């Protein structure tokens, strides 16, 4: 028991010390750049100054962070549910796939920042246009990854299912959907980071709250420490949401190949002949 948890901790340390060291190194570089006067303090504030401000203004930042987080999560959840439903429909019917695909692609390539003002005109200054932009940003990767996942099932498995006579619904629930989950999670992880961007873009265009607003205000006031603080908090929100999904994936798909660690490289490829 003790050795097992000990091993686990050693594993965590092993995985995290390198990125942590890189982060620390970057902080040091940032610090050096500012203290040596290489860059003017009003252009790049020192890390100390930035973190001091974050502590001083924590309640202000926290309030706006909460707003952006809610918009992001709402947009992400809607995009996730819609994305999976659209993907299922596309896999079930080739007609739906060929009909919907061009429109999906079109919706994806439209620059979101360019259509965001339109949503403000339509939906006002509330949280709705931000959620819509977040949904638009996050939707596409979910659809694409889910379609790929649902199509990744072996034909042999589907033929077997046919001889078992379970029908399309049971085949979907017991075979197709679980088989698609690793792909789906890959899409969701991309989607959640894009949802943060979507929410912030929505806030840029017209809003009086949220991290996008904080950044824009700080920019207008030439308040670079606050600008940096806003950027850092926004990134942290994205990273935390990503890690949350990663954790959910590990809990839900313990069997998934990418989680098998060393076994993947030392065993012959599964299913190879």
């Amino acid at each position: 028991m003790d050795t097992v948890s000990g091993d686990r901790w050693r594993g965590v340390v092993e995985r995290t010390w390198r990125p942590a060291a890189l982060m620390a190194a970057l902080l040091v570089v940032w610090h050096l750049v500012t203290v040596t006067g290489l860059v003017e303090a009003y252009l790049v504030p020192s890390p100390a100054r930035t973190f001091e401000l974050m502590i001083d203004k924590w309640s202000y930042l926290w309030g706006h962070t909460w707003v952006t987080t809610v918009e992001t999560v709402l947009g992400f959840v809607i995009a996730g549910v819609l994305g999976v439903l659209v993907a299922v429909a596309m896999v079930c019917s080739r007609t739906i796939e060929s009909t919907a695909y061009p429109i999906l692609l079109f919706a994806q390539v439209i620059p979101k920042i360019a259509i965001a003002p339109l949503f403000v005109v339509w939906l006002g200054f509330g949280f709705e246009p931000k959620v819509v932009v977040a949904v638009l940003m996050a939707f596409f990767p979910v659809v694409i990854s889910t379609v790929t996942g649902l199509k990744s099932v072996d034909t042999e498995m589907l033929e077997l299912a046919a001889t078992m006579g379970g029908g399309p619904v049971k085949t979907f629930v017991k075979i197709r959907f679980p088989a698609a989950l690793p792909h789906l999670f890959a899409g969701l992880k991309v989607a959640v980071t894009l949802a943060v961007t979507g929410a912030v873009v929505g806030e840029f265009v017209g809003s009086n709250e949220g991290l996008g607003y904080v950044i824009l205000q700080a920019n207008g006031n030439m308040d670079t420490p606050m600008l940096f603080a806003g950027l850092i908090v926004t990134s942290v929100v994205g990273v935390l949401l990503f890690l949350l999904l990663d954790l959910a994936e590990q809990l839900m798909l313990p069997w998934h190949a990418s989680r098998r660690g060393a076994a993947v490289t030392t065993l012959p490829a599964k299913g190879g002949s």
Partner: protein
Amino acid sequence: MKTAGMTTTSASTSTVAISGVSVRFRSKRAETTAIERVSLDVAPGEFVSIVGPSGCGKSTLLKLVAGLLAPSSGSVALLGEQVRGPRRDIGFVFQRAALLEWRSARRNILLQAEMRGMNPAAAAERADELIEMTGLSGFENALPHELSGGMQQRVALCRALLHRPRVLLMDEPFGALDALTREQMNVELHRVWRETGTTVLLVTHSIAESVYLANRVVVLTRRPAVVQEVIEVGLPGTRDYSATMARPEFAAATAHIRDLLGAVTGHD
């Protein structure tokens, strides 16, 4: 459910009746004939091996019987009933075990029961019986990636036998295994066949395997595949592996099949 094969003695009806079946595939450029007027009758409880050159359409033949593929002409009947779509009254084993990665060995076997809506308690009991019979005991809870190729294929075999099918269709089931594991699996399969009395159609590349296991061996030609010869294997019902290998009938049958295949592939 009755123990199929052993007690059923309706000699008049074949378990599998393939008559004058042709299969043509159409691609963009050309139409190819995979199988040409193949006929084959398999008696209840019989074990028939099908051998032939690579890509000659052996697998296609099994898919026809399973109803996964429709013939271009001719007809296939299974247990006295025309095959018109995927059949549920069979067990199918592919070369790849085709297991669900997220399910343990036992739950992969029970997939068959879940898909069919079988009584869970009865299915669980049957699964335990098969796990015991195929030597999977102790590996029930392992995930597929933790099992060796031979073990994975045992799981696939158990899954195919769970619902006591009257007919077992096997498409190169041991083709991906090493020689030693393959021999072990042959012995296992022989025992399982003796114990269950299931009718088996086995597609294989191994001449030794085809003869050791079967009552009859069907030799197909190169594409378009026609039946070149059907060999009656005059071996006793219960077969010890090494003793069977040493028998003159075994040597004669394998030599004859090798000759036939050599002739059709042009290496003589």
